[in-house]
């Protein structure tokens, strides 16, 4: 393989360029010679150089850098015009040196800043929530910057377009619930209580949770990705500088749409889950349809139903607030949007579970 010849004579490193010098691999020996403390000057001679490419330029550039760093002389004679020009161009702007030095904090300090950070994040989240709840109040009276079309688009997206997937998944969950329940109840010969089990399970909590998890993955993620991309495209900056409140213009339509849609989706999930249970009960466990219906009806209670709806309503808030919050605070590149979407879904699900625990505790205390 072609490589430039070189020799060291009386402290001068002479590099000879000749022949075909294309696709030259990095000559480690040459750079070592240049770094050698004996070397006091680097001289490049060109004789009969026929062909060259960027690899040769990069080697000369590196030699030049070494000579600068070691403060020794560098001269190049007879370089082809183009090569000389590229070399000059590469040296035109001095190397950028970063002056930012990050000092490592002691452990206690780091723990402290971590705590303060966490507190600030909670505070920021709380402000965001409060701001949007207030905006939702104004939205109800129609005095906001939110556009009706945005609201209708969001409503369509998290309403009619989500019906299929919510129906399918809740039907399957009802089915599974019935199967698993039947195995246990069979041992007591109490198979018919499968109906009660599925009904109570679905309407009190499972319907809302299933709808919530589906919507967090589907709509919460989409909110975060949309708003994150708007952040990347400087659309959110434009809104802010125009004085349009971001929470009203972007968050509110989505928040309102999901808060309206979630209870309805919850009802749908309840119904489809019960249907799934009936499918197993009547067709596979041979429980007479009338019996199944009677036990379901006995288990069905208005309280359970409303507790389920309330869950759905709260989940609507949580999912849309998480999606919008992480979208608006997304990083300004493709990666940032990905991270924001992940966080929106994870945070949405975690807060939903926390809320469920809290509501269940309250119901228990209140004896509901």
């Amino acid at each position, binding site marked *: 393989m072609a490589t430039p010849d070189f020799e060291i004579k009386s402290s001068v490193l002479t590099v000879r360029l000749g022949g075909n010098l294309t696709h030259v691999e990095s000559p480690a020996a040459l750079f070592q010679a240049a770094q050698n403390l004996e070397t006091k000057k680097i001289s490049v001679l060109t004789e009969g150089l026929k062909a060259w490419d960027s690899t040769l330029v990069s080697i000369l550039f590196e030699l030049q850098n070494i000579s600068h760093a070691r403060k020794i002389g560098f001269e190049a004679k007879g370089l082809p015009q183009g090569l000389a020009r590229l070399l000059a161009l590469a040296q035109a*702007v001095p190397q950028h040196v970063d002056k930012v030095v990050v000092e490592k904090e002691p452990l206690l300090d780091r723990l402290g800043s971590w705590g303060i950070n966490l507190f600030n994040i909670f505070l920021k989240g709380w402000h965001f929530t409060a701001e949007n709840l207030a905006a939702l109040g104004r939205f109800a009276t129609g005095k906001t910057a939110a556009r009706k079309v945005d609201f209708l688009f969001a409503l369509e997206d998290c309403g009619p377009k989500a019906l299929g997937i919510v129906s399918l998944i809740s039907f399957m969950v009802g089915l599974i619930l019935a199967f698993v329940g039947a195995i246990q109840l069979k041992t007591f010969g109490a198979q018919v209580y499968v109906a009660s089990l599925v009904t109570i399970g679905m309407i009190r909590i499972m319907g809302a949770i299933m709808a919530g998890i589906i919507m967090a993955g589907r709509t919460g993620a989409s909110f975060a990705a949309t708003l994150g991309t708007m952040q990347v495209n400087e659309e959110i900056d434009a809104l802010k500088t125009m004085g349009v409140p971001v929470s009203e213009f972007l968050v509110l339509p989505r928040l309102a749409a999901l808060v309206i849609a979630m209870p309805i989706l919850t009802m749908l999930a309840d119904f489809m889950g019960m249907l799934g249970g009936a499918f197993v009960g009547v067709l596979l466990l041979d429980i007479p349809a009338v019996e199944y219906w009677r036990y379901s009806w006995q288990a069905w209670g208005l309280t359970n139903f409303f507790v389920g709806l309330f869950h759905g309503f709260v989940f609507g808030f949580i999912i849309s607030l998480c999606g919008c919050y992480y979208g608006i605070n997304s990083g300004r*590149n493709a990666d940032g949007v990905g991270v924001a979407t992940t966080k929106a879904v994870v945070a949405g699900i975690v807060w939903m579970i926390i809320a469920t625990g809290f509501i269940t505790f309250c119901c228990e205390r209140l004896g509901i």
Partner: protein
Amino acid sequence: MTTDKIVAKNLQVAYGPKVIIKTADFAVKQNDIFIIMGGSGSGKSSLLRVLTGLMPPAKGTFWVDGTDYPAADDETKLEIMKKVGILYQSGGLFSSMTLAENVALPLQKYTDYSPATIDELVNLKLALVGLNGYNDYYPAEISGGMKKRAGLARALALDPEIVYFDEPSAGLDPISSTRLDNLMKDINQSLGTTLVVVTHELDSIFAIGTNGIFLDAASKSLTAHGNPHDLLKNPPNETVYNFLTRGKEDEKTA
């Protein structure tokens, strides 16, 4: 003798039924700095998308180094695209990689140079565009103009024979813009690279252009073909004249 690097014949550019350029015939010669001129919306970026293989021509075809590009098989297309560098309007850098990794990517993919050689080439390319020492920065951490220059460093990584530029000087200050013009000229002359440049900048057009075409939005066609200086001397029609003199006329009357 100069040879034709890119030849387009009866080339039509369209998005589905929406025709942007009815028909275009032109030839880019080896070592040209070929300027694609035209008003906003005249289809310059769309033409570039066709020439870089991102979109098939609606009708007609074009040859790169004598090969019918749209008709070629995937392997031939890849071989041709290896000889081509592209600078996208906003840089097109991969945001999850540092500048050095961005520039190294085509080298790692298409050459068998050792890591040390690749490192040196990356250093050189970044230094050529004035980003010496920015190796470990992420695209999100540098300015718009720097992104553009880093994109150029990546476009130059493989010593391409043809480099396409979409609005290289948009968003740059006058000094950076002139520097970029000089850089393009230097690359053109020292490496013999053919450059195809979409630009509105009159200064750039006259400073670097050796050949070019003018696209007209109203007639959806190519209304002029030649060296910008010649087009200014003998403008083939009013639109071209207005386009090429706008700045100067304004200066005179001001």
